[in-house]
């Protein structure tokens, strides 16, 4: 048939599904509030207590990282949203209707991934830039050291913060494809981001040096860092590694979807 649907049609269909449920807007609002709200809160607290700081603390002050501290919390919001984009369909049984319309399952995974990638890249970048600009203006108002986006390493760090959130959304989605239930997916996601780093902390330090830098949360830190340390990856390597994790998890998810009965 000449008017056969393509990946574009599947993606449009998934985008329509994404924006026609209220949970999407609640989730995106959470992302905005966490990232920008925490930037305001944290930078104001730092501004208030600035004069009590020791000189060493003042020298170690990182105006970029502190204004973007909200992404530590936002990473859970985006992971849950990415996961729910598929696990909610399993919970309601809607996945069966979806697969009836789109039996080419790899197409479905690609379409959903494109929707998440585009939406969360745009929203995350907007949110981290807003958080950064808000934070810097609060620092400037208190005559604290602040930085500007004219500095290319600063600009890069802010862009990377948005990319970090986008990639974590897709990791949540990929885990959701593999695990199918929202609760299990969120447990695994939190384990990867929070629990495993704690466990690694108890390992001998010679091991830690080899393992820690590969953890997604540490890759995130490396992506945002302006001064690379010998114990972590450079920002580009870190971003590439995280993107590879993401691609592998989504690919495993796609294979799982193709192989299993719905």
């Amino acid at each position, binding site marked *: *048939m000449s*008017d*056969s*649907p393509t990946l574009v*049609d*599947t993606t*449009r*269909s*998934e985008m*329509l*599904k994404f924006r*026609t*449920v*209220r*949970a999407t807007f609640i989730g995106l609002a959470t992302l905005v509030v966490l990232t920008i709200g925490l930037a305001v809160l944290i930078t104001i607290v730092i501004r208030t207590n600035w004069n009590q700081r020791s000189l060493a603390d003042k020298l170690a002050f990182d105006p970029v990282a502190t204004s973007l501290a909200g992404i530590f919390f936002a990473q859970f919001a985006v992971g849950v949203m990415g996961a729910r984009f598929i696990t*909610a*369909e399993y919970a*309601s*049984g*809607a*996945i*069966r*209707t979806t*697969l*009836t*319309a*789109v*039996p*080419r399952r790899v197409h479905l995974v690609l379409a959903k991934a494109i929707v998440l990638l585009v939406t969360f890249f745009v929203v995350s970048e907007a949110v981290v830039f807003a958080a950064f600009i808000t934070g810097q203006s609060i620092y400037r108002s208190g005559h604290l050291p602040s930085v500007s986006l004219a500095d290319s390493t600063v600009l890069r760090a802010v862009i990377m913060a948005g990319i970090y959130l986008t990639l974590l959304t897709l990791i949540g989605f990929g885990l959701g494809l593999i695990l199918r239930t929202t609760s299990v997916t969120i447990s695994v996601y939190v384990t990867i981001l929070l629990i495993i780093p704690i466990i690694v902390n108890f390992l001998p330090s010679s091991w830690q040096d080899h393992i820690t830098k590969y953890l997604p949360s540490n890759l995130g830190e490396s992506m945002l860092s302006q001064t690379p340390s010998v114990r972590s990856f450079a920002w580009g390597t870190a971003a590439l590694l995280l993107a590879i994790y993401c691609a592998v998890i989504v690919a495993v998810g796609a294979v799982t979807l193709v192989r299993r*009965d*719905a």
Partner: protein
Amino acid sequence: MLKIDHLSKRYGETMAVDDLDFEVTPGVVTGFLGPNGSGKSTTMRVIIGLDRPTHGRATINGKTYDEFKAPLREVGALLDAKALDPSRSARNHLRALATANRIPIKRVDEVLEFVGVASVAHKKVGGFSLGMSQRLGIASALLGDPGILLFDEPVNGLDPEGIRWIRDFFRSLAKEGRTVFVSSHLMSEMAVSADQIIVIGRGKFITSGTVAELTANATGTVYVRCADATRLGEVLGALEGVCEPANEQGLNVSGLSSDQVGEAALSAGIAIYELTPQRASLEDVFMSLTADSLEYGHHDAGVAP
């Protein structure tokens, strides 16, 4: 043309579908009859590509479901009316399906209107009754104007008016030359709504045919009312008829024709007041056909485990 080609599906140890092999022809309503757990839903799930067959395949005009780029234009299916995202509106639900299959959006409003859900099209489907969800499910099955339609237990949740509506609807779809394949565990429903019936039990094919063909082969019983039921019972028992007392004077006789019963009574000198052959209903046929294949046997009531 829908073709089930030596299809088997195993879930772990359970053989849900065991070497089913039949064709469903266009132009008539084909009933798919079997007790609960006999593999009807599994067969339908394999047809629309949700489950992968262990052996064999199901094809639609020679292709398996996942070979279609726009499957909703080939096959419309209503398997589980509640398999919807409850927080999306009926119209948006159909719009998403239409978009994925390049079906014009105006068709969404047409089918919503047709099934009588247009007035609540903007309401979230989570608040729909089962009957309304069934109607929405029918709307989504019709969305792509497909030549083949599958309905799994469609009358569940419908009120009597809805049941009548859906029967007429199946007939009209078949009359348009479409293939209509409807499953049910209710033989009474199939007797009135299907032209052709395929009976399965425990995943295996049992028989197929028209309602008339299925009932014709079954031997019915003969009801006889006479002056001395006890003695007639003994006489008929000697002829290998099985008699069950129906009332004080009456017997239900199986294994003998009404002619044989009448002649036996005459030679024994017993006056007959009433002699009626009872045709087997589709229900009787179904019960006897599937008696060995019920997933769960019936236990005596009142015995708590």
